[in-house]
């Protein structure tokens, strides 16, 4: 509440424009400030079904909080924290603004819609459709819904309990979940034939990119498998890390998550190996600093070139060559170039590869991103929509929520046109 007091309640609130999913912080903070707490919760959850998760995970420093006028006199209002507070408060007081009769749900006459993938994009699309009277079925390959929030982001950042509560808010809208149900390549069309009026595809990126042309072997694991096994409570990640020196390859948020997880699993030392400099890392500043403070060693300006093996084929270390920054590359960042003759081996008992994810091979869009209109999610096939990471490549939770919502609006328009 003290934080809300600091808000300047700007005219034409810039923070609201900074949110891809239009969660409308300007409005919910103002409501909170004027003691309209339930209204504030309503604003968050109506606009963003994963408002709680976004409050925890959003890179606010480059979204809403970046726009905050309060930075002109002081520091930004901590919008993410306020948003999270409101959602947790709604659970505490047992108020779900999207159900329980507070909403006039139209009769489920608009038709059946299938959503493939229970990640942020799929959940947001499903919720928006259900709120508008559609009967929605979510097909999810894994045992539980949530996507990366359930099987990627480590529990110390977003607890399973927290996610569960937020998923219940979706379920309360009457969305049906069919879990452990992967949809194959011809799936979307098949679902249309089965009577679903529209299909939304939000399957994300679940195939790891391999840094050295597919070579892996003992002691090496991809970030996808590592984090997923960890989130499923399997013993493998602990076995891999405990008491060992662990190298993590990559400089993004996923690499940071892997490094921090490895530390928590009892690794002796964790090296984050990145070929560029600290300020060039794609990971958010706050997570970089947290990792540093927790004791992750940042091994910068080093390019991994392969694995060193011991006599029995076990992992001995990661082969590295030192780099220096030269002129700018296509991305506008200074490019790392190898320093000849500077090869060395970082001794390590385990290595986690976290250099990126791509679409899965045996899936709806084998090995490729799906092309869809970013404003509506429309693909070239009538009745089939897509959004989230499978369209944009690696993105954020909030952008995926925005995509799901936008697609739902387009689907509703399609359904309405069909009725009239």
């Amino acid at each position: 509440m003290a934080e809300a007091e600091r808000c300047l309640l700007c005219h034409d609130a810039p923070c609201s424009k900074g949110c891809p999913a239009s969660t409308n912080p300007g409005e919910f903070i103002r409501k909170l400030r004027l003691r309209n707490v339930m209204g504030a919760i309503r604003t968050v959850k109506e606009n963003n079904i994963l408002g709680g998760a976004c409050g925890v995970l959003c890179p606010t420093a480059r979204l809403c909080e970046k726009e905050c006028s309060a930075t002109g006199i002081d520091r930004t209002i901590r919008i993410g924290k306020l948003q999270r507070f409101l959602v947790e408060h709604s659970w505490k007081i047992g108020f779900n603004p999207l159900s329980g009769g507070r909403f006039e749900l139209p009769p489920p006459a608009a038709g059946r819609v299938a959503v493939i993938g229970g990640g942020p994009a799929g959940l947001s699309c499903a919720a928006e459709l259900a709120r508008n009277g559609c009967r929605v079925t979510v097909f999810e390959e894994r045992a539980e819904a949530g996507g990366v929030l359930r099987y990627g982001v480590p529990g110390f950042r977003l607890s399973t309990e927290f996610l569960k509560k937020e998923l219940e808010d979706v379920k309360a809208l009457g969305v049906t979940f069919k879990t452990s149900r992967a949809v194959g390549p011809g799936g979307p069309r098949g679902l249309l034939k089965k009577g679903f009026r529209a299909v939304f595809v939000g399957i994300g990126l679940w195939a790891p990119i391999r840094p050295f042309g597919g070579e892996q072997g003992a002691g090496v694991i991809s970030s996808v498998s590592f984090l997923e096994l960890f989130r499923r409570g399997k013993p493998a990640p602990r076995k891999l890390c405990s008491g060992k020196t662990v190298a993590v390859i990559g400089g993004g948020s996923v690499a940071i998550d892997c490094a921090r997880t490895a530390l928590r699993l009892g690794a002796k030392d964790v090296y984050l190996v990145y070929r560029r400099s600290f300020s060039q890392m794609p990971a958010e500043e706050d997570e970089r600093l947290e990792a540093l403070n927790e004791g992750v060693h940042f091994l910068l300006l080093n390019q991994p070139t392969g694995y060193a093996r011991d006599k029995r084929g076990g992992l001995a270390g990661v082969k590295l060559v030192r780099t220096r920054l030269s002129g700018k590359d296509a991305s506008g960042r200074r490019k790392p170039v190898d320093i000849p003759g500077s090869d060395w081996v970082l001794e390590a008992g385990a290595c986690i590869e976290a250099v990126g994810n791509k679409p899965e091979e045996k899936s709806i869009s084998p090995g490729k991103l799906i092309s869809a209109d970013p404003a509506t999610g429309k693909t070239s096939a009538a009745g089939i929509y897509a959004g989230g990471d499978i369209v944009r490549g690696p993105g954020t939770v909030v952008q995926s929520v925005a995509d799901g919502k936008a697609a739902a609006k387009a689907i509703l328009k399609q359904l309405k046109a069909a009725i009239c």
Partner: protein
Amino acid sequence: MLKKVDLSVKFCGVTFPNPFMLSSSPVSNSAEMIARAFDAGWGGVAYKTLVTDRIPITHPSPRMHGCNYDGKRLVGLQNVEQTTDRGLKPNLRDIAYLKKHYPKHIVMASIMGFSNREWADLAKAATDAGSDMLELNFSCPHMAVEGSGAKVGQANDLVRKFTETARNVTKLPLVAKLTPNVTDMNEPAMAAKAGGADGISAINTVAGLSEVNLDNFIPQPDVFGKGSISGYSGPAIKPIGLRFIAQLAKNKELGLPLSGIGGIETWVDALEYILLGATTVQVTTGVIHYGYGIVGEMIEGLSDYMAQRKIARVADLVGKAVKNVHETSDFNVRRQGIARYDLDRCVGCGQCYTVCRDAGGSALDWNAKKRRPALTEAKCLSCMVCSFVCPVERLITFKEMPKTWKRRKTVTLG
């Protein structure tokens, strides 16, 4: 989409879409502004006080001063504004415009005459312009014209006389707006009733002097080197407004519907006025602070409150708290209690110790090593000042003690 709750109220026989009104002030200065306020959700307006064109009004400049407390802005507002400075004709045209374009919204023209004759002329003119009701302004604390404003509100015979004058020329409901700068508001209220008033609105601003400039010794607002005692409004005066509304509501002989004013910013403030007897509520400083949009928060907040408690009509809330307002002599002082500390959550600031020692029962000891207070229950006065300064919410609460419990007497020196 919020499930619609019916917020409509009937006040002096007039149906309002909701109880939220702009009070008579700059926020209700013209049709252009009021139309935007209606669009934002306000149910009615007390139009900025009309006067005849006989004495032209020029406002002092600057005309307001915002009072901050610590970091909090506009805890109070000091103003030296007069009645409308627009001509009577343009104002009447604006009133007619509003009634034409917003027939369901309520326009209550506020009027103030400087003579019996003027009261009659204004009441008639405002009626002819299409006002739904009239508010008789007996309460401006800083009118520069003799025989007007709060000076009338403090003279009961004039209140009665001018109300009668208005009553004789119009059939519209008459609401007398009274000043808090009196000892007992029931006297002018009864006088207004005797003169034919249908309702009472209160309070207008409290006569005050909020701040002095330490460099040049001029009270604020500084009107080219001069300050003055003038009208104080905003959250700081809410307790005063609630007091008067409660006193009027408790007066069975009066029995008139009330419009509550003073320091309302949120639905909670509005509901407190309603629970103490107001049927409608009016706002100025809240709008000066946040703009017309605050009514959206009031509507949503009150609707949620009513929906949650399954209250169908605002009327069911009006006056609900009045029976719980007693004379202090009615309290049962045989029941006594003390402060209870939940020290598991204590952060060790020690403010409780300081204030208990210097302003309470000196009932706390301070464990310097652990940085924790220790309460001697028998010395606790249950003044609760410790809980007012404690930064941890609900760490210090009140608990009743058994009948057999006895408080120790205060130490006497010498």
